[in-house]
């Protein structure tokens, strides 16, 4: 499973993407954020209290409770400012 980071989230994590293999118990976007927070200090700073964090599962906006089973690409980013 690929995780992508954009904008301020990308800068804070220090990566634009990484390949991950979370265990089976990580079932939702919120679960994944908690799991990512355990990957080290930098990730923890971003994902332990992810106020305002937005997510997309396979390029579709997803709420924290959304399932991630079978997803190929999950993205985390701040609120959008396009237009």
């Amino acid at each position, binding site marked *: 499973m690929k995780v992508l980071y954009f*904008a301020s989230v990308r800068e804070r994590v220090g990566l634009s993407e990484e390949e991950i293999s979370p265990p089976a118990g990580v079932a939702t976007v919120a679960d994944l954020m908690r799991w990512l927070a355990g990957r080290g200090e930098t990730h923890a700073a971003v994902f332990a209290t992810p106020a305002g964090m937005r997510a*997309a599962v396979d*390029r579709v906006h997803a709420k924290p409770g959304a399932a991630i089973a079978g997803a190929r690409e999950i*993205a985390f980013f*701040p*609120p*959008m*400012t*396009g*237009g």
Partner: protein
Amino acid sequence: MAKVRVSSEPFDLAAERAALTDGRADVGALAMFVGVCRDEGGALVALELEHYPGMAEAEIARVAGEAEARWPLSGLTVIHRHGRIRTGEDIVLVVAASAHRDAAFEAVRYLMDWLKVAAPFWKKEIRADGGAGGWVAAKSEDDAATAKWRG
């Protein structure tokens, strides 16, 4: 089916308008919107627009499809640029064509309201004084603007 383009290249307003009306005479109304990079009182020289390739096009197409389902449009074009955009340059274009003006006006406004909150683009300020520019903060009124389209 709307025309959607996400590109670093500038767009041509007149050409995009012509593409929606040339060779037909059933269009009575063209509503258009161009979002332009402001300098914020001289503080900025540019914006750097980051986007999520693939999802950006998909989200714009999704919102455009909603507008086409909601109003009787004869054409709809949405172009959003990314990359370095200097002050005074265009960022986004929406053009809606319809037989009547209400549909065209409403569709363009719907697109802009939803693009602001749903299209995965992020703006970083490039400051004139060379200082570290911050990410542009999302505005709560942009979320509020989408509320009027619900229900």
